[in-house]
């Protein structure tokens, strides 16, 4: 992670893609969101979705995984260059999450993240808060999800 001071509004990163399989959709739904349209092809076909589709929570959990893996790669490259790796803290929350289109079995979603806003933390000295607009786009180029996430990022010491 870069220090808070080095992050600029408009910075954009490509996070990679995830393909949602029917088995993966059903496994997530069975644990966390067992509504019929996430669990069963026949029931989903009769619903307004028209076919089996992923729980919205699954589609953002898949974003989180790719965001973490991106950071691990970036941190490893930074460390290999002998640079200091700043800390990324937890998130205090998110807002404006929109599930714009269903994510169906077989869909491949490509995720990206763009810094929208940043400010110093009032409550936690040494930390800043960075807000990023995160998006997922399917293989047809349709935006399927968008949300404004946030996270604590370490400030440059001194």
């Amino acid at each position: 992670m870069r220090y808070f001071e080095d992050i600029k509004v408009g910075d954009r990163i490509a996070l990679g893609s995830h393909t949602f399989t029917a088995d993966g959709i059903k496994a997530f739904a069975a644990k966390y969101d067992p509504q019929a349209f996430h669990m069963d092809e026949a029931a989903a076909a009769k619903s307004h979705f028209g076919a089996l589709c992923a729980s919205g929570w699954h589609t953002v959990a898949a974003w989180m995984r790719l965001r973490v893996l991106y950071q691990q790669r970036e941190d490893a490259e930074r460390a290999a260059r002998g640079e200091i790796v700043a800390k990324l803290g937890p998130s205090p929350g998110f807002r404006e999450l929109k599930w714009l289109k269903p994510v169906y079995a077989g869909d491949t979603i490509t995720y990206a993240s763009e810094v929208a806003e940043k400010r110093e933390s009032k409550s936690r000295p040494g930390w800043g808060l960075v807000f990023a607009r995160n998006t997922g786009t399917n293989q047809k180029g349709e935006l399927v999800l968008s949300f404004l996430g946030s996270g604590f990022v370490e400030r440059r010491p001194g």
Partner: protein
Amino acid sequence: MPKFYFEDFSPGWKAAFGPRRITREEMIEFASQFDPQPMHLDEEAAAKTMLGGLGASGWHTCAFVMRMIADGFLLDAASMGAPGIDEVKWMRPVRPGDSLTVRGSVLSTRRSQSKPDRGFVTLHWEVFNQRGEMVMTLTCPQMLLRRNAGATA
């Protein structure tokens, strides 16, 4: 057949679900799959982070609460899913073994302008641990079929 339709919700509707215990094993299983950061995976590494010890991925808490809401009433409702989430606040860490209670209320309702068979109910959920501390809030519009939608649509 669903028990609850759009018309059954109005400001003043309240519900409480739980407590339900979240285990270390399921926290680590979720984090390994979706949020593999040390603060969600490893006690020793987590102690050195802002969380001050192992804490559930916030997305896991959301998913865990989703299941409590599903079991609590949504699976008995004419749910058409949610178009999104207005806001989630992660206020305190959720620790291994915490027992979570969820309290919900209806903020507002509106009929769909474009599709007469459905409406939106905006629900506000507060999630507490066994010490009564609020750990998360979640505000989301829930899409529901109207009763006799087929007859009126």
